[in-house]
C-alpha cells in the first residue's frame, strides 16, 4: 500500500507532544558554563571606552572577549562586511561589543552589565530615501574594501549606502508611457516583520582538540559552519555544527547568530562548554527580520485599459550588514508584473544600508511586499477604469508559454487560470459582490513562486533488522518536510512502514552538504536525493536476494518488507534477512543520493545585479479573502480565506495543509497585527511579545484550501515546493479587501486599527464636504 498522499503522523510528533524532544535551548553539556553578550544600546556611535576589567574581576567569571580577542577579519553570507564585535564604531542597536562566560546565566548577565562601555552617539541613517542622497553619512565608510564571500570576481553593483542594486531597462518603456491614454501611479510602504519563532536563539560552543563544535537548533547547519569559520578564521572543516530540534525559524535561523560567540567563548574559557541564549527582547531587536520597503509603481494604459508598460522601483532596508539580502534583490524583476502581462517593464531594486538591525530571510522573501504592491496597484487601475477587479486580472493573466522579463518561459502558467476557477467554484465573485454589506470587503490576488533549487544529499543505510536510517544534514524546522516528507518517500521506495525509517538530526561531521530548510526545498530536493539513495539500496538488496531466492535480480521487486519474485509474491525473503546476509557476505547495504535543480534558461543581459537569475520549479497561487471592519475600533476580522495552490503532488496532506494554514496566518499577522516600527533613532519601538502582537486563535479563520496537482517529472512523486507560497498573498488580498470595505485605499502594511480609523475619518470628512457642496 502506498504511503504517498496518506495521513502519516510525523516521526518526531510523539517526542514533541510528550516534552521529550530536545530543542536547542534544552541542550546541556557536562560542566557547561553560560555566556552573555554586551550589546550596543545605541544604533550609531563611536566607542570611546570599553573596560572589561570589572567583569573579569567578578568571582565565577571565566572569560571576557572583545574585538581585540577575535581575528581581525570580516564575515558574511554574500559580502564579508561584518565583524564579530564592533571595534571602533557601532552600527545598530544590539550589536555585540563584548561577550562574557561565567558559572551561571545570571552571573554572566551581571558580568556583561559590569563591562564599562561608553559610546559617543553619531547621526543614525534610518530613512531609506535619505540614505541614498549624496550628502547622507555612510554607514560603511570602508564599503569599497569589502570582498564578496565567493571572492572579488563575485562582486556586484553596490556603492556607498547602496548595498546592492539590480536594474532592468528594456526598450519601449518610455515610448509606451509617451503614448499612454492613462497612467496610474502608486506608492506602498511596508514595515519589517519579526519571524517570532517561539524558541529564542541559543547555542552551545565547545573548543576541543583544535576544533570548534557548536550545538544549535538551526535551519542551515552548513551555512552556520561557514560563518563560524569566517569569523574565527579557521577552515570550514575545523567547525562542526550539531543540529537539534528547532522551535521554529521561518528564515531567521538560516545564518549564524550566537554560534560564533559560543565557539570563541569556549576557547577563551579553556574548552569549557559555553551556552548562550537570547532573551526575547535581545532576540527581537537583533533578529534578521523581513525588511521594510518602499515600492513605487506606475503603469501605462492604452484606450482599452490594457497595460502597455510599467515602471517599478523598490527600495528595501538592508540594515547595518548584508547577510543574504544582496542575493535576493533581483526578485523584484521576477515579481514586478505579478502574474499579469504588462508590456515592457523597467525594474529598479535598491538595497540600502541603515543603522538598524540587519534584515534577512523571512518565508516568502521580498515577495510579500512586491505582490502587495502589484496587486494593490491592479485594484487601483481597475477602480480608475471602473471595471471589475477579477475580470481585469483575468484579462491580463499569464498563460502557458509566457515569456518573462528575464527571458524565462513559463510553460505551465495556465495553471493560474485553474486556480482562479477553483476559487470561483467555492466563492463565486459575482455572488460575493452582490451580497456585500456595509464595512465588508473582498480581495483577490495571484502569484507565482520558486522552489529553492540548492543541493542536498542523503545516505540511506539499511539496518540488519530491516529498518532504514537516512543520514542527512537536512533540517525539519517544523514543516514536516523531513519528519513526514522525506520519511514517507524513503518508506515508499523501500516498501517498509514510515515508522521503520529514522532520519538523523544534522551533523556537519557526518552528513554531506545540505542547503537548509529554505525556499520550500526540503521535500523536493532531499526527498529526491533520498529516493536516489534508496534506489541504490534496492539494487544491492536484489543482488543479494537473487542468491537467496535462486532467481535473477531483474526478476525481483522490493515490497511489503520483503524482496520477492515479481508475479510470485510467495517466493520472498524478508528485507531484514537480506540485510543481515549482506552484512556478512558483501558488506553492509547503504546507498547515496544527491540532487540539485538546474536554473531555468534566462537572458543574462536582461538586468544588472542579476544574482538570483530565474525561478526554478515554479508554483502558482490564487488567494481570496473576505473581511469585516469594525468602524468604531478600526479592527479588521478576516471572515473567510481561500487558497488555490499548485503543489505538484501532495506527499502529506497534513503537512501541506499545515503549511498553507500556518503561512496564511503569518501573512494575516503581517497584514493586520505585527507592527514593528523603527524610531528616528534607529531603535525598534516594539520590543516584546506584548507590543509585537502575533495572530491568536481568534484572529484567523479556517483556510479553505484547494490543492492543484500537476506533478513535476523531476520531483519525488511529482512534488514541488509548498511552504513559502501561502505567505505571499495575504497582505495583498487583505489590503484589497479592507480598502474595498471602507472605500478608501490603504497602501501601507500593517493595516493597524489606527490606520483604518484615520482612513475612515478622512472618508467621513470628504463625505461631509461633498454634502455641504
Amino acid at each position, binding site marked *: 500500500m502506498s504511503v504517498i498522499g496518506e*495521513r502519516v*503522523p*510525523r516521526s*518526531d*510528533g*510523539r517526542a*514533541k*507532544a*510528550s*516534552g*521529550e*524532544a*530536545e*530543542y536547542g*535551548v*534544552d541542550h546541556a553539556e557536562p560542566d557547561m558554563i553560560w555566556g552573555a553578550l554586551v550589546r550596543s544600546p545605541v544604533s550609531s556611535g563611536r566607542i570611546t571606552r570599553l573596560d572589561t576589567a570589572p567583569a573579569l574581576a567578578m568571582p565565577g567569571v571565566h572569560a571576557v572577549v572583545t574585538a581585540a580577542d577575535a581575528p581581525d577579519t570580516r564575515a558574511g553570507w554574500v559580502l564579508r562586511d561584518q565583524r564579530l564585535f564592533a571595534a571602533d564604531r557601532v552600527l545598530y542597536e544590539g550589536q555585540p561589543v563584548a561577550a562574557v562566560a561565567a558559572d551561571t546565566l545570571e552571573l554572566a548577565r551581571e558580568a556583561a552589565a559590569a563591562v564599562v562601555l561608553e559610546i559617543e552617539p553619531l547621526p543614525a541613517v534610518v530613512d531609506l530615501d535619505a540614505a541614498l542622497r549624496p550628502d547622507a553619512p555612510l554607514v560603511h565608510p570602508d564599503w569599497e574594501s569589502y570582498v564578496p564571500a565567493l571572492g572579488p570576481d563575485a562582486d556586484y553593483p553596490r556603492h556607498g549606502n547602496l548595498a546592492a542594486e539590480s536594474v532592468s531597462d528594456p526598450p519601449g518603456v518610455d515610448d509606451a508611457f509617451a503614448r499612454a491614454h492613462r497612467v496610474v501611479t502608486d506608492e506602498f510602504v511596508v514595515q519589517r516583520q519579526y*519571524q*517570532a*519563532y*517561539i*524558541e*529564542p536563539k541559543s547555542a552551545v560552543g565547545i573548543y576541543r582538540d583544535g576544533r570548534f563544535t557548536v550545538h544549535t537548533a538551526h535551519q542551515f547547519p552548513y551555512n552556520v559552519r561557514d560563518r563560524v569559520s569566517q569569523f574565527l578564521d579557521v577552515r570550514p572543516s575545523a567547525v562542526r555544527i550539531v543540529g537539534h*530540534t*528547532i*522551535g*521554529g*525559524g*521561518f528564515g531567521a535561523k538560516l545564518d549564524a547568530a550566537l554560534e560564533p560567540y559560543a565557539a570563541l567563548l569556549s576557547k577563551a574559557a579553556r574548552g569549557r562548554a559555553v551556552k548562550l541564549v537570547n*532573551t*526575547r527582547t535581545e532576540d527581537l531587536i537583533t533578529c534578521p527580520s523581513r525588511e521594510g520597503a518602499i515600492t513605487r509603481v506606475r503603469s501605462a494604459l492604452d484606450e482599452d485599459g490594457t497595460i502597455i508598460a510599467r515602471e517599478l522601483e523598490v527600495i528595501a532596508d538592508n540594515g547595518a550588514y548584508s547577510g543574504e539580502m544582496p542575493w535576493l534583490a533581483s526578485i523584484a524583476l521576477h515579481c514586478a508584473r505579478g502574474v499579469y502581462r504588462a508590456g515592457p517593464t523597467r525594474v529598479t531594486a535598491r538595497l540600502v544600508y541603515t543603522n538598524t538591525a540587519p534584515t534577512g530571510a523571512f518565508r516568502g522573501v521580498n515577495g510579500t511586499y512586491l505582490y502587495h504592491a502589484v496587486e494593490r496597484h491592479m485594484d487601483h487601475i481597475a477602480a480608475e477604469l471602473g471595471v471589475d477587479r477579477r475580470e481585469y486580472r483575468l484579462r491580463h493573466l499569464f498563460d502557458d508559454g509566457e515569456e518573462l522579463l528575464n527571458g524565462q518561459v513559463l510553460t505551465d502558467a495556465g495553471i493560474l487560470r485553474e486556480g482562479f476557477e477553483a476559487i470561483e467554484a467555492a466563492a463565486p465573485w459575482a455572488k460575493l459582490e452582490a451580497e456585500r454589506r456595509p464595512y465588508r470587503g473582498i480581495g483577490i490576488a495571484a502569484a507565482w513562486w520558486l522552489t529553492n533549487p540548492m543541493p542536498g544529499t542523503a545516505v540511506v543505510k539499511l539496518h540488519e533488522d530491516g529498518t532504514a536510517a537516512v543520514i542527512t544534514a537536512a533540517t525539519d*524546522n*517544523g*514543516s*514536516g518536510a523531513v519528519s513526514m516528507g522525506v520519511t514517507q518517500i524513503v518508506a515508499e521506495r523501500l516498501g517498509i512502514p514510515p515508522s521503520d525509517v529514522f532520519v538523523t538530526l544534522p551533523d556537519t561531521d557526518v552528513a554531506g552538504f545540505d542547503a537548509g530548510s529554505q525556499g520550500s526545498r526540503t521535500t523536493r530536493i532531499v526527498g529526491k536525493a533520498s529516493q536516489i539513495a534508496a534506489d541504490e539500496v534496492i539494487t544491492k538488496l536484489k543482488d543479494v536476494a537473487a542468491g537467496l531466492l535462486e532467481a535473477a535480480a531483474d526478476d525481483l521487486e522490493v515490497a511489503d518488507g520483503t524482496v520477492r519474485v515479481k508475479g510470485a509474491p510467495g517466493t520472498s525473503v524478508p528485507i531484514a534477512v537480506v540485510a543481515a546476509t549482506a552484512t556478512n557476505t558483501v558488506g553492509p547495504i547503504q546507498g547515496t543520493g544527491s540532487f540539485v535543480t538546474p536554473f531555468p534558461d534566462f537572458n543574462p543581459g536582461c538586468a544588472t545585479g542579476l544574482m538570483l537569475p530565474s525561478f526554478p520549479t515554479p508554483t502558482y497561487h490564487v488567494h481570496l479573502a473576505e473581511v469585516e471592519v469594525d468602524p468604531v475600533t478600526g479592527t479588521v476580522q478576516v471572515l473567510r480565506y481561500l487558497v488555490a495552490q499548485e503543489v505538484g503532488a501532495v506527499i502529506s496532506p*497534513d*503537512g501541506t*495543509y*499545515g503549511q498553507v*494554514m*500556518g*503561512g*496564511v*496566518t*503569518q501573512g494575516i499577522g503581517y497584514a493586520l497585527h505585527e507592527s514593528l516600527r523603527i524610531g528616528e533613532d534607529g531603535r525598534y519601538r516594539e520590543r*516584546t*511579545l*506584548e507590543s509585537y502582537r*502575533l*495572530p*491568536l*486563535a*481568534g484572529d*484567523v479563520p*479556517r*483556510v479553505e484550501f484547494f490543492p492543484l496537482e500537476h506533478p513535476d517529472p523531476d520531483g519525488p512523486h511529482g512534488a514541488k515546493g509548498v511552504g513559502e507560497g501561502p505567505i505571499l498573498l495575504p497582505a495583498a488580498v487583505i489590503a484589497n479587501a479592507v480598502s474595498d470595505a471602507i472605500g478608501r485605499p490603504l497602501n501601507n502594511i500593517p493595516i493597524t486599527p489606527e490606520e483604518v480609523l484615520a482612513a475612515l475619518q478622512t472618508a467621513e470628512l470628504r463625505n461631509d464636504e461633498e454634502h455641504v457642496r
Partner: protein
Amino acid sequence: MDVTLTVNGRQAQVEIEPAETLLGMLRERLRLTGTKEGCNEGECGACTVLVDGLPVDSCIYSAAATSGRSVETVEGLADDDLGRELQAAFVAAGGVQCGFCTPGFLTTLVAVLRENPEPSEPELREALAGNICRCTGYSQILDAVAATISGRNRR
C-alpha cells in the same frame, strides 16, 4: 529555602532561591525541560503548567508559591487519560509542527476540557488566547481537540 510540593503526582522537596520562578525550578532543578520558555513575560504561553489544576504561566509564577500545591507539566500528561488522548490527537491531526508551543497548548487544553468537556469552537479559540502558535495557524490544533472530544463521546 526549601519548597515541598507535588509534581506530576509525586512528592518533591526542592531547594530554591526566594525569587525563583516556577519555570526555572522545573527546568533547571528538576530537569523537566518539556515546559518551554518563549518570552519570560507571560505572553506566549509556552511555559503553561497546571497548579492545583489551573493553568498558569510558570515564567511569571513564584516557585515558592507552589508550596503544598500540585503541579502538572507536560511530562505528567501521559499519566492522565485526557492528557494522553490529547497528545495522541495533536500528533494525528497535524497539531504539532515545530512543537515548541505544544506543551503549553496541551496543559491549557487539559484544564479547559476538564472544566467543560464539550466547548464550542469559538469558546476554544477564546480559551486559547493566552497561547501563541507561530507555525500551525491553530486549525489543526482545533481539529485535535475535536477528535479528542468525539473520541471520548464514543466510549
